[in-house]
Structures are given as structure tokens and as C-alpha cells.
């Protein structure tokens, strides 16, 4: 069985962001980076499937500059067999259709049985790429799964809907699924697996060879939202903050009465 999992490297959302010189994306220096949270679930599910199915081969794909190889190594240490790095220093300016186009172009003649992606990225958050890849490859795609069972070519998934309701869906492979938080418990790579990952294949391919579609949208401008909430910000020593907050609660609410 051939499996593909697509991941993205994103900044830690607690970072202090700045707008870049063009004013079309965030400044990429001075940020802490990690694997997109949703993709961690995708990698874990792909690895579990690989472990379940004999003779399977799991490729992790990531688009970006050389730095993303670090994130790919984590996926390799979690259990992916090989890495396909699509070298692109301008990946952050590509819109979801271009990203999906690159992935589909890579995947089209490799007959993957299963493709896993995160349901969205934490930075751009468009929630489109996985489903677009499915459409481009002309195979079924199912968004936002929280449960996945594969058996003999048939896949049973649960999609998470609002209010905690789930929709149960059955479909035949090949297909694409996009993974939602809580799908599984992503493993921590162990030290021996981190060492082993260093020897795994990690090929870089130039994005120019794979980008065959045109962009359909652009970012005109990126900026900080106007602060609307006139909320009070309290800073200082903890004991002092406690007193201040209690004072406020006494004045503004009836909860301490």
C-alpha cells in the first residue's frame, strides 16, 4: 500500500508577529517554528496505517525552503519512510490552489492508495488543500475526520460536525482525508527513531517542475486588526494582580457578593 502525508511548517501561534516588508505576509525571522498541529494527526494516522498494512510505503511531502526539512525529519522520526521536499522559497505566497496543484502533480502517477493532510494550516487557515488535491486527482476526498479505520480497501471515517455530532461515512480507497484535532494521539519520536530518521531518504525536487497551475487569488495586504475590545489589560506582580482583579470583580459583577 502506498501512502502520502502532506505537512506544513508553521510558526508557533504564540509568537509575536510582524508584517513583512511587502506587507503581504508575516515576517519570517525571529519566529519559533513547528509542524502544523493538524498535520501531526495526519502523520500519526498515516504511520498507524503503515504499521497495520504489510508492505506499505509512506512518503511525507512538504513544500518550502530548506528549513522545512527539519519539520520533515520529525515526520520521518515518527515513522514515515521517505521524504519528498518540494523546494520553494516562496511557498508562503502561494495560494491553496497552487499548493494543491503542486501536490497533485507530484502524486498523479504514483498511485497512492491513501493521502492524508491536515484539515487546515494554522497560519493561512483556508481549509482547501486536501479537498482540492482529491478533486485534482479525481478521487474521493473527505474533510475533517476524527476517526479512521481501514480494512481491505474500504475506509470508514467519522467526520466531525458542529456541536460534537459526527457523520459516519464509508468509502473505497484511493482517497484523500483531511485530519481534524483529536483524531488520535500523535506520538513523540523516540531517540533511536530520531537517529534512524537521519538515514532515511529525503529528496528535494524543484517546485518549478511541479507547479503547472496559475494562481487564482492574491494577498493585497496583511495587517493587524484594529483592537475593538476595550478590555482592560492588567500587568504586574501576581499578588498585586490578584487584588486588582478582585476589586474589579466586586465592582463589575455580583459573583463575589
Amino acid at each position, binding site marked *: 500500500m502506498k501512502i502520502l502525508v502532506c505537512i506544513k511548517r508553521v*510558526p508557533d*501561534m*504564540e509568537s*509575536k*508577529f510582524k*508584517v513583512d516588508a511587502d506587507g503581504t505576509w*508575516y515576517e519570517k525571522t525571529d519566529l519559533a517554528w513547528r509542524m502544523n498541529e493538524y498535520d501531526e494527526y495526519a502523520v500519526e494516522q498515516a504511520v498507524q496505517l503503515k504499521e497495520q498494512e504489510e508492505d506499505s510505503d509512506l512518503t511525507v511531502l512538504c513544500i518550502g525552503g530548506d528549513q522545512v526539512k527539519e519539520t520533515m525529519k520529525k515526520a520521518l522520526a515518527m515513522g514515515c519512510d521517505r521524504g519528498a521536499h518540494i523546494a520553494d522559497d516562496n511557498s508562503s505566497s502561494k495560494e*491553496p*490552489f497552487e499548493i494543491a496543484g503542486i501536490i497533485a502533480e507530484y502524486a498523479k502517477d504514483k498511485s497512492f492508495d491513501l493521502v492524508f493532510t491536515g484539515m487546515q494550516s494554522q497560519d*493561512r*487557515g*483556508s*481549509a*482547501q488543500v486536501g*479537498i*482540492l488535491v482529491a*478533486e*485534482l486527482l479525481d478521487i474521493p*476526498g*473527505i474533510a*475533517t475526520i476524527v476517526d479512521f479505520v481501514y480494512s481491505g480497501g474500504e475506509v470508514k471515517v*467519522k467526520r*466531525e*460536525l*458542529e*456541536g*460534537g*455530532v*459526527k*457523520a*459516519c*461515512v*464509508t468509502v*473505497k480507497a484511493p482517497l484523500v482525508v483531511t485530519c481534524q*484535532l*483529536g483524531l488520535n494521539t500523535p506520538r513523540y519520536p523516540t531517540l533511536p527513531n530520531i537517529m534512524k530518521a537521519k538515514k532515511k531518504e529525503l529528496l528535494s525536487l524543484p517546485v518549478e517542475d511541479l507547479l503547472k497551475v496559475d494562481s*487564482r*487569488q*492574491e494577498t*493585497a*495586504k*496583511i*495587517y*493587524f*486588526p484594529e483592537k*475593538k*475590545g476595550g*478590555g*482592560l*489589560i*492588567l500587568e504586574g506582580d*501576581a*499578588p498585586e*494582580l*490578584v*487584588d486588582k482583579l*478582585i476589586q474589579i*470583580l466586586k465592582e463589575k459583577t455580583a*459573583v*463575589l457578593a
Partner: protein
Amino acid sequence: MKIILVAEYRDGKLLASFNELMDFADKMGGENVMFLVGGDNDLPKYDGKLYLADAGTFGEYSPDVHKQLILDIVEKEQADMVAFCHSSYGWDLAPRVAFALKAAQVSEIVEIVDGVPVVPVCNAKLRRDVQIKTKRSVVTLQAGAFGLPEEPAGTPTIEKVEGDLAGRVQFTGYEQPESGGVDLGKARIVVSAGRGIGKPENVEMIANLAQALGGEYGASRPVVDSEWVEHNRQVGTTGQTVAPKLYVACGISGAIQHLAGMKKSEFIVAVNTDKDAPIGEAADVLVVADLKEFVPLLTEKIQSL
């Protein structure tokens, strides 16, 4: 400009979000029609043409089929835009429609400024103005970003959609969330633990503060996904919606899906080490502090009052 508004229907009921689509259409101007895979039993109060496909025939979840139905209507109406909610239904279906129409899809629009769609970036810490380069476009609207101030009161003109279509996936039924246990919706005070608590042992610290205040404790999703707290205490779109007299968010960043479950609280206090955390926008008071230090001190002080 002609827009197709895609309303939603689940488990035999129309979802109230059709009203957000109508508000969006008003803000865009031009003409609009609505599309729904639903039933006669529960129709949107929409003054306009409603293309109604029977959910019994076409299925509540059948993406290939719903896509084709929408494409047929786009063709018939010569529509310029298709609008979905940014919901589990929308993010499954919208990209398919965009792909087939060779259209740009702009996801999670929070507002339209001078005709330009604005979307959030990085957990709403930043915003982006999007320029669409295609003739047609597909959009999804952030939940709660649009909405008519009053309940709409119209009656649609129904045009039934017929057809014989088959999809590749088989929907086999819904699974309801487990019920029972605590009812956060009834609590006067809710103190919630977010990922910022760091480890499961710290749930107790949050529960203690809740108890000192005479309330209940809740949690954000990652805390529930990690199984540190049971699901019926989760606050947000995929958990409970609460509106207590006081909501204290401890180590919670304030993602839109969490805010949706608590922003109607009467008074909101956030405790967070990140002064720029988006929860600050919803909070009446943002205490910039390490919760591990602040929460036990606050609990102690309240107990001694």
C-alpha cells in the same frame, strides 16, 4: 453580481446559519438565490428563489452529488459567486465547487470592506485583504461574522431540484455526542482550562478556582482531546455553548471556535502570558500572568474573603 447562497440542513432540520448568508448577500448587493438540500418541513425564511433538493433523495452528506446540483444552478442562473458557511459542510463542499468552476475560493471571510474580502491569519492575530483574480468566486463565511439583526420573516419561492445522481461515498448515519454529566450551560460561573495549563495535574488548580467561586470548570478543545478533561466540559463550536455571569479563561488563546462557545458571557476574564493573545479582544479583563502562579493565589484570596 449574482450570488448562490448555500444553506445547510442536518438531521432533518434547517440550520439557522442561512441568516448569515442573507446578511452577507445584503452587504454584497446585487441579486441572490438560495440553494438547500433539505426538506419542506423546515424552510428558510427567505424572500427569494429557493432551489430545494430533497435530502431524502440526495442525502445530507453526499459531496459529489451536492457539488453537481450546485454547478447546475450556477449554470442556470449564470451566477458569479457561490457562498457557503465556513462550517463542516462548507469546508468539505466549497473547494469542490471552486475547483469545478475554475474559481478562486476565499475562506473564512470576516468582513467585506469596500467590496474586498477580509480573512483572518494566524489565529486572528493578523488579517488579510484578498484579491480575487477569477471571474467567478467561491467564498466561505466565518461563523458569526455575519447575521441579520432581526429574524428574517420571508417566504421563499420554491423551485424543486430533481435528478438522478450517484456519489462515491456512502453516508451511514450520525453519532450524537455523549450526554449526561455536568451541564455547563446552567453554571453561573465557568472557569476554563486551556492548553496553557501545560499538564494534566494542573486541571485541579482550575477546578479549585471554579469551586472557590461557586462555579464549574470547563476546558478548551486541546485539553479535552488530550483526555485531561471529559468532553462534556468542552466549551466551543464542537462542545458546549455557555453564557455565565463570569467566564474565566485560563491559558486559552481565544480561537474563533472557542470564542463561539463563550463570548456571550456577561463578564470575561482571561489569564494569559501572551499580551497579544486574541482572547484579549473578547475579554473584559486580560490578566497578563503565568496562570500557575496567578490562579492558586487568586483561589486562596477568594477563599479568604
